[in-house]
């Protein structure tokens, strides 16, 4: 289990990264945290000829408060997000989801941009950016391109990023006042990818919802926006009956596969259970004094 030969290059600036991508695409791969890429390279299931190491590009690693949203550099480590007060306060859903990613030594290296670019259907970050309507900022030879999260994910391990482009930042809208969020997942073991996970953010006016944002992971070819469930809550409020109805709708609108770890039917059931739990917890958090 040793990787096939490749050439490692470690540029120091985004401009160099983009130039290298243009030079070596499509055989080059950007190397972010490496927590998903290196394992498949060790199995020789992935064999790029050039690895463009992003770990020495300081301009890609930052968390910036841009007023209405946070801008998070793609090379921001999950561990940095986990430890950021700014993220915890302004983007609590992203913070909560991050705690579910792998284990501490994985989060030491893993990055938000790497996770989103890898687009594993069971990963947490894609569901979060989909639920929060984040904007993905891509950089390529012709400059910057902004893509809505809803248009970014294109199936299993596939995104809208072109072979000569790089995801450089994510704009994460700040959680509104009177909002609460929750990330709930069930995995076979602590730290594993979710069998089903749900990201939820609910904004209240009085006791009623003015906005509901829901997305699931592990139950489709990519993260799944639970629009039907959102509509159910907006139409019928946050009673236990409405939440259950929304959860059942969520189970119907996901598209899971059967694999060794769970059948499709079981994943639908888990989607319902996680949706309900995420909604209840988000509402509780919304009502809690901040």
């Amino acid at each position, binding site marked *: *289990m*040793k*990787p*096939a*030969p*490749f*050439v*490692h290059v*470690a540029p120091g600036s985004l401009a160099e990264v983009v130039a290298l991508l243009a030079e070596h695409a499509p055989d080059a791969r950007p190397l972010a945290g*490496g*927590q998903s890429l*290196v*394992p498949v*390279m*060790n*199995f020789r299931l992935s064999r790029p000829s050039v*690895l463009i*190491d992003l*770990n020495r590009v300081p301009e890609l690693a930052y968390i910036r408060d841009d007023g209405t949203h946070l801008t998070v550099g793609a090379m921001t480590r999950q*561990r940095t997000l986990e430890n950021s007060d700014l993220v915890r306060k302004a983007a609590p859903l992203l913070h909560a989801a991050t705690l579910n990613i*792998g*284990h*501490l*030594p*994985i989060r*030491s*290296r893993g990055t938000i941009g790497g996770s989103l670019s890898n687009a594993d259907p069971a990963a947490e970050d894609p569901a979060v950016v989909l639920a929060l309507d984040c904007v993905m900022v891509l950089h390529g030879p012709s400059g910057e391109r902004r893509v809505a999260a809803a248009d970014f994910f294109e199936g299993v391990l596939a995104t809208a990023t072109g072979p000569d482009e790089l995801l450089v930042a994510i704009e994460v809208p700040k959680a509104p006042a009177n909002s609460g969020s929750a990330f709930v997942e069930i995995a076979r*073991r*602590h*730290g594993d990818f979710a069998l089903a996970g749900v990201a939820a953010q609910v904004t209240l006016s009085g006791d009623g919802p003015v906005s509901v944002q829901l997305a699931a992971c592990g139950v489709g070819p990519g993260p799944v926006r639970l629009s039907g469930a959102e509509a159910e809550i907006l139409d019928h409020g946050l009673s236990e009956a409405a939440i259950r109805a929304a959860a059942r709708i969520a189970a119907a609108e996901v598209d899971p596969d059967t694999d060794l770890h769970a059948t499709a039917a079981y994943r639908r059931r888990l989607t319902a259970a996680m949706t309900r739990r995420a909604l209840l917890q988000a509402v509780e958090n919304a009502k809690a004094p901040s």
Partner: protein
Amino acid sequence: MTDFRPVTLTVNGRPHTGSAESRTLLADFLRDGLGLTGTHVGCEHGVCGACTVMVDGEAVRSCLMFAVQADGAEIGTIEGLAKGGEMHPLQKLFSEHHALQCGFCTPGMLMTAMDLVHSNPDRTPQEFRDGMSAALCRCTGYEGIVNAVIEYAAMVKAEAADG
């Protein structure tokens, strides 16, 4: 295809220079290049945690990093825990709590525990347990490991309070 390049890094406070291919895993570089075989390789895909080392103060999987990426970094391995033949308190606690049998996972367990405790000694017992689930042990059933880590955290906290 020869693609060797020099790698200079600090391991357990001592500077080392070696040469590595682009593809040489940090774990292999430490073990085969520097002869520091205390770091073990158990799965080479980032699951078992046996190869966990400190890179610039944080626990990472050395099977998921290339040696060239560690150029200039400060690495900590199990060989650096004891000082002058005196075991580190965490090592002593592992022995007292029967937290090892075959000892193969132990290096990764110790490195994982060092990071968990020193990054936040105030974690709850359940958080320490979940944190230690980052590394796999097949012998002990984990009880001694978790108890040793919890006791070590208490020791670190008490020392911080005294200091």
